């Protein structure tokens, strides 16, 4: 008997060696997978900040309150000295005021049959959840979620973009472009649970630590943004424009300080969103700039020595070119102007007489140096490069219309950047929107710096800048852009608007781009109104927005009033111009030169 027992024990011993020793690993894995529970800690999405560190977008902790109808039935409340089981009706009446819900609606959810999981309310703030939790209703639980909040709301919607509320997936704008840095990586924790769900003490461990998203700091100045958006929105409504944009670029750095679009959308309330309004039109829509493009023609002409500010130009009412008769905005008798006058009064004919003396290749070269036809380093999602046609295509009427801003396209950002180049003494600073991203220790890692590119000489830039001060002068096209006590340089633009939906020209683009004080500008402001229903001229329509934003900037910066310019330029020729004068530009001279 003893022998048999010892033999059985020997067999048991070997079985134990196998089960506990040699073959244990596989069983351990099975046991672990049975008990272990993986929880995902969502990464907190990084903030988007403005240049001063003010929050433009941030994620806040929210809770989805859920209920287990089976457990709620056990809700007990102390009545007097005894605990009474009052269940779902009492739970509903206790929770209704906290959650701001109807008690009968709550009770219906609490008593939903055949389920142990009912979603009660989403996006509950931590404060409310703490109060709900304090009631101690059994079966009430919460899942931690995040909600994205955009303090500037509509003012910056198209630039910031949005994330979908349900899963925090980025859909557009900066949210989309910097999603990788912003989103971070969710962490996983593993714990072992008891059969009924308790966490077994000491079994928790971190599998992958959560990496929260990094903050992204933009060059946007939220005060200025707010102001620009309001000024633009008001004007778009006043003039009945379909849409409008305003761009403010810092002259010395090329940093974009404000990008306003209207109509816009509120990323806090996507239910009222119109998909068309989520587009950052200032970056993504290319349009024919119109007269604001004359600046590049003049820059090239000055740089190539074709004209000086005082060069006389005889401007007829009509100019036959390429089988067409070109005209100015208004009929006028033959006028005797200076080159300054041509740009100040925005004469198309005068511009043709000057610009036709430059080859298309030269002009295309300047357009590209000014940043047209290529995306900015911002590389915003959906950003347009615009379209600068090849010199070979500069034939027929387009050979001439391109001199005054038609038949090619550029974005509001690109056009404002052109004026930044002139304001910055001929050095173009490629526009940027990102100051940098924060690293793990919270220090800003600056975005790669953009190097300035000299487009025209400082002399040309200074001269041209002084010439376009006349635009806001007594004879210029933009009296509405004037700011008392300051010299304002700028240019109006009125262009035929090519409607992509109608596949044809329909309405106008009225614009004004400029800067002040002209002798020491800190900011360039570009205002663009597309398809206004009241009026068409850039000076009258866009000028007031420019005026308000520029005035705000001047007042904020406390810029000193401008001294009188040392450069004495005139709009009208000081003496009678002769078609035979070899220095005077005229139709006769053009014929002589075989143009």
């Amino acid at each position, binding site marked *: 008997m003893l022998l048999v027992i010892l033999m059985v024990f020997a067999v048991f011993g070997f079985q134990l060696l196998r089960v*506990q020793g040699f073959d244990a690993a596989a069983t351990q894995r099975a046991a672990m997978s049975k008990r272990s529970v993986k929880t995902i800690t969502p990464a907190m999405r990084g903030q988007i900040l403005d240049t001063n560190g003010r929050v433009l977008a941030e994620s806040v902790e929210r809770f989805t309150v859920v209920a287990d109808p089976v457990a709620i039935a056990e809700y007990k409340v102390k009545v007097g000295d005894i605990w009474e089981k009052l269940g779902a009706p009492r739970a509903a009446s206790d929770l209704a005021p906290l959650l701001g819900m109807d008690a009968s609606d709550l009770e219906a959810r609490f008593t939903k049959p055949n389920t142990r999981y009912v979603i009660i309310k989403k996006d509950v703030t931590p404060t409310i959840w703490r109060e709900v939790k304090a009631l101690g209703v059994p079966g009430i639980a919460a899942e931690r979620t995040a909600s994205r909040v955009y303090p500037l709301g509509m003012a910056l919607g198209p630039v910031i973009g949005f994330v979908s509320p349900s899963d925090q997936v980025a859909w557009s704008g900066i949210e989309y472009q910097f999603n990788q840095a912003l989103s971070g990586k969710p962490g996983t924790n593993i714990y072992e649970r008891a059969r009924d769900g308790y966490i077994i003490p000491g079994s928790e461990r971190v599998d992958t630590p959560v990496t929260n998203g990094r903050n992204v700091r933009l060059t946007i100045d939220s005060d200025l943004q707010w102001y620009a958006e309001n000024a633009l929105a008001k004007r778009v409504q006043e003039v009945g424009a379909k849409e409008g944009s305003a761009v403010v670029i810092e002259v010395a750095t090329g940093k974009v300080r404000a990008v306003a679009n209207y109509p816009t959308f509120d990323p806090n309330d996507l239910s009222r969103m119109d998909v068309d309004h989520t587009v950052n039109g200032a970056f993504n829509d290319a349009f024919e700039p119109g007269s604001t493009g004359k600046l590049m023609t003049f820059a090239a002409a000055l740089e190539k020595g074709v004209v000086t500010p005082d060069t006389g130009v005889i401007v007829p009412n009509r100019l036959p070119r390429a089988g067409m008769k070109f005209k100015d905005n208004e009929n006028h008798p033959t006028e005797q102007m200076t080159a300054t006058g041509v740009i100040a009064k925005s004469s198309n004919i005068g511009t043709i007489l000057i610009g036709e003396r430059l080859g298309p290749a030269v002009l295309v070269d300047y357009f590209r140096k000014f940043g047209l036809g290529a995306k900015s380093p911002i590389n915003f999602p959906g950003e347009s490069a615009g379209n600068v046609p090849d010199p070979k295509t500069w034939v027929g009427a387009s050979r001439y219309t391109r001199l005054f801003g038609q038949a090619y396209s550029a974005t509001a950002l690109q056009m404002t950047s052109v004026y930044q180049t002139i304001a910055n003494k001929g050095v173009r600073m490629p526009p940027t929107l990102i100051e940098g991203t924060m690293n793990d220790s919270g220090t800003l890692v600056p975005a790669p710096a953009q190097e300035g590119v000299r487009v025209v000489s400082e002399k040309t830039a200074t001269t041209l800048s002084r010439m376009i001060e006349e635009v806001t002068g007594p004879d210029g096209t933009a009296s509405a852009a004037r700011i008392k006590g300051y010299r304002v340089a700028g240019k109006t633009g009125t262009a035929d608007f090519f409607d992509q939906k109608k596949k044809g020209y329909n309405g106008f683009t009225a614009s004004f781009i400029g800067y002040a004080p002209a002798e020491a500008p800190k900011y360039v402001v570009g205002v663009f109104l597309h398809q206004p229903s009241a009026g068409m001229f850039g000076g009258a329509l866009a000028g007031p927005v420019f005026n308000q934003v520029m005035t705000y900037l001047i007042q904020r910066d406390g810029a000193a009033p401008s001294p009188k310019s040392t450069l004495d330029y005139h709009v009208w020729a000081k003496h009678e111009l002769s078609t035979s004068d070899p220095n005077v530009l005229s139709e006769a001279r053009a014929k002589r030169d075989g143009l």
Partner: protein
Amino acid sequence: MTSTTTSAGSRGTTKPRGRGAATPDERDTSRLAALPVIGKLESPLTTYYLILGAMTTLVVFGLIMVFSASSVSSLLNDQASYSVFARQALFAVIGAAVAAGASRLPLAWWKRLSLPVFLGSVVLLGLVFVPSLGVEVGGNRNWLRLGPIQIQPAELGKLALVLVGAMVFANKGRLVGLIRHAILPYLIPVAAIIIALVLGGHDLGTALVMFAIVGAVLAVSGVRGRFFLLAGTVGALGVAYLVQTSDNRMARIANFLSPACQADPDGWCGQSVHGMYALADGGWWGVGLGASKEKWDWLAEAHNDFIFAIIGEELGLPGTLVILFLFAVIAWGCYRLMVRTRDRFVRIATAGIMAWLLAQAIINIGAVIGLLPVIGVPLPLVSAGGSSLVTTMLALGILLCFARNEPGCRALLAARPGMLKRSLAVLPSRSPRRRNR
């Protein structure tokens, strides 16, 4: 228990002449005694201390493990985490008192007590079927509610089988060679009544242990091999019939043999699978006392039928092997008693008790480690459960009583200094033992 285990002589001789076990044993003993260390251990007191030591260790071990294994489930049931442990400790104290009393009872008393124990157990087993007194737990109607306490009369039934068998066959002497005497009156009616009552409550596990007791009693009494073969076959057929006729039992066997079931922690074999999980989690060295994860409601009956798995999980291979070792020690102690005694009653009763404890331990451990189907018997001395603990300790108390009556033992025990003096032995004193040397 098979016929090969018949080690004691069938003709009632005092000198054991088994088939291969006894003679080498004597040689072994003398050879071992020649070794200086082992020789010192060999004394008339050895058996006494082997059984006493193994029992005490198992009970204390069991208390600790019951505490560890039950603490979580008690807590999850809104009870104090030591509630099961406290009950078990109380029963351990009662059991210790019972064992101490039993060990000091004169040997003749046990012969006299066998009949009353038998009658008492039959009455109690019968009372289980009285609707107001019997309690059904997990399909087994084997509990009796007596006022504030519940007892399992089947435990007493095991003791009755041992004592009555020993008394009957000790008195029959050589008559057991006759089949008529082998059957009457022990097999029929004594064993038959008790086992029938137990099976009436659907408690197959206890019945199996009782079969083992009966088998051991018959084998040691010197029943002929032929009859044994016959009885064994009848018994096996009986068990097979019982299994066959119960869907529940058939399913248990089928699932035990099904690898798919043995891999599904949520299915029919969940308890067995989680037992294996616990053992594997423990691995070589265990997760540490108290650190079991399977006791968190995963493993059913963690403090009871499956406490061996929790021992394996918390204390690893050393823990499980120590349990095996301690039961082996009890088996060895019983074996020593059987070969050294001159009293047939003592030999037969010892064999019965040995079969009882060891069969129960083997059925329990075998089920936990996946070698046997889960039948549901507690691990003697270790599992939680008052009736089982107290009666098992009573049985061991009887063994201690037998051991005290070994030749020379009583004299040596009497020569020991008193309990108080032994307790103060660390204090400087003139030791009587030193004088004896």
